C-alpha cells in the first residue's frame, strides 16, 4: 500500500506546486494547504503503513501488540494538522489584510502599489535605482 500512497503524495505535491506558482494569493494559499496535507501524509507513510489496528494498548496489557500502527508519526501528524490550520488561517488573514491595503489579491499589483512609497520611507541611495530596474527585468 506504500507505493500507491507515495504516488498519491507526488500528485498532491505537484498540484500544490502548480497552485503556489499562481499569480493570485488565494490560489497560493490553497497550494499551501495542499502542501501541508502532503507533508502530513508523508510523515504518516514514512512511519510505515498497512495495519488497521490503532496504537491502543489493550486493557490489562503492558505493551502494544506487534500488529498495532506506529504511534509516533501519528502524534507528529496530529499536532501538525492543527498547526497547519493555524498557518492557513494566518495566511488567509494576510491575504485579507493585503486586499484591504492594496485592493488586489495579486502579488505583482501589491509590488507596484508599494513602489511609489519607497523614496519616502528610505533615504535615496545608489541601490535604490538599480533594484526596481532589475525587478522589471525579472
Amino acid at each position, binding site marked *: 500500500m506504500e*507505493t500507491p500512497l507515495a504516488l498519491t503524495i507526488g500528485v498532491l505535491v505537484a*498540484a500544490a506546486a502548480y497552485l503556489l506558482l499562481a*499569480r493570485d494569493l488565494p490560489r497560493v494559499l490553497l497550494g499551501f494547504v495542499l502542501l501541508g496535507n502532503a507533508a*502530513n501524509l508523508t510523515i504518516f507513510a514514512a512511519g510505515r503503513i498497512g495495519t488497521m489496528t490503532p*496504537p491502543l*494498548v489493550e486493557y490489562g496489557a503492558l505493551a502494544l501488540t506487534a500488529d498495532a500502527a506506529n504511534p509516533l508519526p501519528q502524534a507528529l501528524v496530529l499536532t501538525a494538522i492543527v498547526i497547519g490550520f493555524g498557518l492557513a488561517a494566518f495566511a488567509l488573514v494576510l491575504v485579507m489584510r493585503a*486586499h484591504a491595503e492594496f485592493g488586489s489579491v495579486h502579488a505583482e499589483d501589491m509590488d507596484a502599489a508599494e513602489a511609489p512609497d519607497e523614496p519616502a520611507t528610505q533615504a535615496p541611495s545608489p541601490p535604490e535605482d538599480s533594484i526596481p530596474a532589475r525587478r522589471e527585468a525579472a
Partner: protein
Amino acid sequence: MHAPELILLLPLLLGIAAAIVVACLRPAQAAPVGAATAAVCFALYLGLAGGAPVSAAFWAVPSLGVSGGLRLDGLAALFALLITGIGTLVLLYAGSYLKGDPRLTRLVVLLLVFMVAMLGSVTANDVITLFIFWELTSLTSFFLVAYDHEKLEARKAALQALLITGGGGLALLAGLILVAIAAGTTSLTGIIAAREAVLAHPAAVPAMLLVILGAFTKSAQFPFHFWLPNAMAAPTPVSAYLHSATMVKLGIYLLARFSPVYGDEALWQGLLTWTGLLTALVAAVLAFRETDLKRVLAYTTVTALGTLTMLLGLAPELSAMAAVTFLTVHALYKAALFLTAGILDHETGTRDASALGGLRGVMPWTAAAAVLAALSMAGLPPFLGFVGKEIVYEAAVAADGGAGLIVLGAFLVNTAGVAIAGLLSWRIFFGARPATPKAPHDPPIAMLAGPVVLATFGLLAGLAPSLLGGWLLDGAAASILGHPPTTYLALWHGFTPILALSVVTVLLGALLTLFWPRLMRGLQASRALDRFGPGHGYDRALAGIVACAEATTAMVQHGSLRGYIRLLLLVAALGPLVVLIAYDGAAWPADPVLDPRALAFGMIAAGAVATAIARGTLAAVMALGLVGFGAAIVFLTFGAPDVALTQFTVEVLLVVILATVLLRLPVHGRDTRTTRQRSGDAVVAVVMGSSVALLLLAVLAAPFDPRLGDWFGQNSVPGGHGQNVVNVILVDFRALDTLGEIAVLAIAAFAVIALLRGVARPLRRGN
C-alpha cells in the same frame, strides 16, 4: 556568600550601581560621583594587592563542563590598580574638561561601565567570563569613540574600532573555545595547569593563532594598528583612559595570561617578537608624520604596545619583569601626557604641535607635569621610565635568536620615544610662544590632578623601584612566569654597556627633537604611506563588502513572488533528484498489493488535481475539502483514529472559513496566468511532484527501524499510565514539544486578531 566572592565581586557591583546612580544625576554631579566610585575600588584593590591570589567561583553549567569565577593574582592586581587608579583621575578630569556639556552624564556612565568591563576582563578566571567582559569593553569603546556622534569622522572611527576589535573578538572566542576543549576546562588556572594537553591537541596551532589574532586586534598590532590613531576622535579623557592606559593593554594582558601556556613555543615567540618589533618601528615612523598632539601620542602608544608584545615574545624568564615594568611605566606617563594634551587643547584651542610653543610661563603647573612625564617617557634617570628602558634593553640583549636585530629595533624605537618626548615637553613649553586661538592659563585643579599625580608617581617610583617591584610587579611577573621572578628592579646597575646604549639613545633622540619640523614635513610629503597602508585596505574591504551585499541583494531580492517560489521549488525538487540519480538511490518498495483502501488515495489525487485546475474559488475550495476528507479516510483506515478525527474536524472548519472569506473578497476567482505561464508552471509542478514521489519511494524501500515506535508502545502504560499511546506521547513523553505547539497556536490566534483589527470593516463595506 563567603569573603573572597564578596570582595572580588564588590568593585564590579559598585561600578554598576554607580553607573545607575550617575544616570539619574545632573551633569555637574556625575563626574565626582564616578571618580569617588573608582577611588573606592582603587582602595579595595590596594588592600588586596601584594597578597596571595584570591579566587572565587560563581557559576557553573556542569552539563557543558563550564564553570566561571573571578581571580585576583599579581597580574590582575596590577591591571586592576591601573584601571581604577587612572580611572579615578580621568573621571575627575572629565568633569572639568567637559564642563557644561549636557552629555557629560552619559560619558561618565559609559566610563564606569567600561571600568567594570575592564575589571571583569582582568579578574575573570574563566575564558567565558573573560570573553564576555572583553566584548563589553569593545562595545563601550564604540560608544565612547562615537561620543561626538554628529561628526562623521567620529562615527567612522567608532565603527572601524568596533569592526576590528569585534572581528578580533570573534577570533578570540573561537580560539578560547578550542583551548578550553583541549584543556577540558574553561578555567584559566585549569588551562595553565593542563598546558601539555593544550599543546598536544591537534588544533593547538590554530587555537594559538586565533588567540593571538584577538590580542593583536585589541592591542593595535600591525597590520591592525590604524584603528587606534583614528579612535582619537574620542574626547581626550576617553583617549587617555581607553586608548593608552587600559583597553589597548587588554591584548597584552591576554598574551601575558597565556604566556605560561605558550611562552616556550617557537611560533608564539617568533610571531610576538617580530610583529611587536615591526609594529613599534612602523608606529615610531608614523608618529613623526603627525602634528595633532593626540595622534602623535596614539602612534607612540602603538609603539609601546609593539614593544610590550615583543617583550612577551622573548623568553619569559627575562622578559616578564621587563614587560610588567614597561607596561606600568607607559600607563603612567602616557596617561599623563594625554591629559596634558587635553589641557593644551582645552586652554589654547589647538592641538597642533607645530602651532604651540613657549607655554611654560603661562601654564607652569601643566608644564611641570608634562616635563616630568616626558622625562619618564624619554627614559632619563631617576624616573621609572629609565628603569623600564634599562630592563627592556636587558631583555633584548639577552634574546635567544636575532638579539642584534632586536636590540637595534629597540634602540630605534626608544630613540623615537625620546624625540617625541622632547617634542611634547621642550618644543611646546619652551622657546618662542606663537599666538593661540585662546589665551592659555593653567586649568582648574581637577584637570591638573591627573597629570601631576601620575607624573609625580613616575618620579617617586623611579627613585625606589624595588619598593614598587617587590610589592606589585614581582607578583605580576610571577603570574606570567608561573614562579617568582629572578630579576629585580633597580635604578642603578653600574656602568654597563646598556647604560652606554641609554646615553646614546637620549642624545640621538634629542637631536631628532631639534630637527622635528623638517622631519615631519618630509614624512608628510611621502604619499606612498597613505596609499598602501592597511587603513586603505580596510576602506577597500569595507566598500567591497557593501558592494557585494548590494549585488547579492539585487540578484536574489528581485521582487517577483513567482520567481522566488519557482526557484525554491526547483532547488527542492532537483536536490533530491540529483542525489537519487548520482548515488543510484532510486528504489521501489516491494508491496504491490492493493486493497479497497486505495480508493481513498484516488479521492485525494482527484481532489488535488481538481483544486489545481478549478476555475472558480468555490470549486477549488470544495475540491480541497475532498483532499482533506480523503486524507482523513486514509488515517482512519490505517489505524490512526485520533488523527482521522482531528483531520475531519479541521477540514470542516477550514472549508467553512475558506469558502466564507474567499467568496467575500470581491474578485473573480479565475486563474490569471497566461497559457504559456501555466504550461511552464505545470512542468515545474510535475518535476517537483516526481521528485517527492521518487524520494518517498526510496525512503519506503529502505529497511525500517521500529525501535522508537516500539519504545513508546512498551513504555506508554508503565511510564505514562495511558493506553492511548498517541495521547501519552503528546501529553507526557513529548509534553514540552506539545507545550511549544500550543504556544504557537495561541500566538497565531493573537496575530490573527491583531491583523484583522480595523481591516474587517472596510472589507465588508466593499462587499
